């Protein structure tokens, strides 16, 4: 008899998830499970549906579910709004976040993140300083984006700056599960290390599930991911672990998958 403790239940899972965008099927039946406190890598060739999976879980409207379900703590979240999902603890770091003019990054973080919350949100929105800012600036400094604090949200951020600002925002929300869409692309070596260190620190706390969509070996190995999922043509085609990553890099998806899945 198999005894399943509550801890073994996935925090979030997709069951036979089918998704289309503008009438074109992208995910054609994906079953995946993410457990609390674990680190996952989602890999796969271009256009395999990796970002679609994350965006659908976040609830972005252009990703239409045509079949299957998404469960969070065992309950379907299909009918929940993006806001509700965010407040439940699901976070998604955008790959190319849109520009929001007139809204400063520091004020915005103060507004959305409980840890930095100002006593007077209006004052913060209109650019007045408040007492909470110092911790905020220290944290900006740590991620090397102190220079972005007073800039409009995503306004002219470089690729690397965007990644770090996104990471900063989702981290500050204290989510239960976070999807990072290529958090390592466009980063120079130093920034890559900064981001890696930040993610490692989160992993070591064991209270957030990290799901990383990436093409690169460095960050996944540095983090010592617990599981590797490979998507291909809208399906989960392989489940493995860290040891697969070097082999995959050497052989490429086509050959690797041909050998592994026969």
């Amino acid at each position: 008899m198999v005894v399943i403790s509550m801890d073994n239940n996935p925090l979030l899972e997709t069951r036979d998830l089918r998704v289309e965008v503008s009438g074109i099927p992208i995910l054609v039946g994906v079953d995946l499970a993410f457990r609390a406190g674990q680190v996952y890598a989602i890999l796969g060739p271009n256009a395999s549906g990796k970002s679609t999976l994350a965006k659908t879980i976040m609830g972005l409207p252009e990703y239409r579910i045509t079949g299957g379900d998404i469960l969070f703590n065992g309950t379907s979240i299909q009918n929940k709004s993006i806001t509700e999902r965010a407040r439940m603890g699901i976070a998604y770091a955008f790959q190319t976040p849109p520009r929001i003019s007139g809204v400063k990054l520091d004020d915005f973080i103060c507004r959305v993140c409980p840890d930095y919350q100002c006593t007077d949100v209006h004052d913060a929105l209109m650019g007045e300083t408040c007492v909470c800012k110092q911790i905020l600036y220290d944290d900006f400094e740590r991620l090397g984006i102190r220079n972005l604090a007073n800039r409009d949200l995503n306004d002219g951020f470089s690729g690397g700056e965007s990644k770090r600002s996104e990471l900063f925002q989702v981290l500050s929300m204290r989510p239960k599960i976070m999807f990072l869409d290529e958090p390592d692309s466009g980063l120079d070596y130093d920034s890559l290390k900064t981001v890696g260190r930040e993610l490692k620190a989160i992993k070591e706390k064991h209270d957030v599930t990290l799901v990383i969509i990436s093409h690169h070996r460095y960050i996944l190995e540095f983090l010592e991911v617990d599981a590797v999922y490979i998507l291909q043509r809208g399906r989960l085609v392989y489940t493995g672990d860290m040891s697969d990553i070097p082999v995959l890099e050497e052989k490429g998806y086509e050959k690797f998958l041909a050998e592994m899945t026969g």
Partner: protein
Amino acid sequence: MPSDDTKKRARSAKEKTAPYGSDLDLDKYEYSPSKSGDLESIDDLSEKDRALVREVGFDPAQERVSGSFIQFDNETLLADVLLQQKGLEVLPTNLALQKYDWLHDYLWNAVPVDTDKYTARSELEEYNGYFIRAAAGARIEMPVQSCLILKKNRFVQNVHNIVIAEEGSELHVITGCATPSNVEHSLHLGVTEFYVKKKARLTFTMVHRWSEKTDVRPRTATLVEDNGTFISSYAILSSPKSIQAFPKVRLIGTGAKADLYSVVYGSRKSKYDIGGSLSLEATKSSGKVISRSIATDECEIIARGDLVGLSSETKGRLECDGLLVSNSAVIRAVPMLAARAEGTELSHEATIGKVGAEQLSYLMSRGLDEEEATSLIIRGFVKLKVPDLPPTLQKSIDDTIRMSLEGGM
């Protein structure tokens, strides 16, 4: 005294309709003689009036200002220069015209009296307004605050303002115009002429809060001489019945510069026809016309921008952004560029759209609900960021916009 010729020209334009904006019947209003006020100090303002002037950014406590001017209807209540502001004058226009004979040369110089029936009528009826002047070389760092309040029904507030920044001076003027919400069928006729002399620097910040049954027809023009700078920022945050304004700046001196910023938050069934015109007449002159419009409810906004390049090595830019928050509202952007000299460089960019779905999703993914996200996008959009504006002025604009949005949203 105004010459007979001026009166004659005014009479000839009495029926001349304006090219833009709905046509108003000027005979259906009451006109009244202008009066000089009897208010000894701002402290004598009633609590209600204090609240009213505060709404358009006027500080009755007069902190951080160099002077103040208040006019209710056609009655000047106060024209006051604070102590130690050497080189600054603030007077009711009528008194200034009596005091300075030379001022008649400035009257109707930037704005031709026969521009249209509104300028004509303004001349033919009694008017008042403010005369503000910074003497040559005077640096008046704190702004002069003024407010023009229209309180009577079926009434014309007829204002003629003249602002002169003499050579090498620096002057900042803030004007707030408002009507209490119960005022009906009234008209604000406002003529304003700005003169920016050589190397002078003038910033003009104006906030409008009109009631929904007021029509507003400002007629504004500016002359900027060699290396002078004129920066105007204008926010209209309430919903008058109609407003049509097309301030014109003529850059007549080498290296003259002007930037016009405006924000319109349109609501109800109001009709806004707002624009800005830059005429680059002297070599090396340059400027920008930047407008932001938000259309809600059933309002109609026409945002015009006009650049005319008449000399070499000139540069002008139009930027017009519109945000549509309702399916029953309309925004039209009308950019006009005319190059009439080799070596003039004119450009424009206009974007009009709804609140972006991607922006909404993004903010919602950070835990804001749809309403909060929309409001944040709008607040961000209307934020009027004017480079080089003194921080106190920027704050005053921010505060006023914030107050208005809180009332309107």
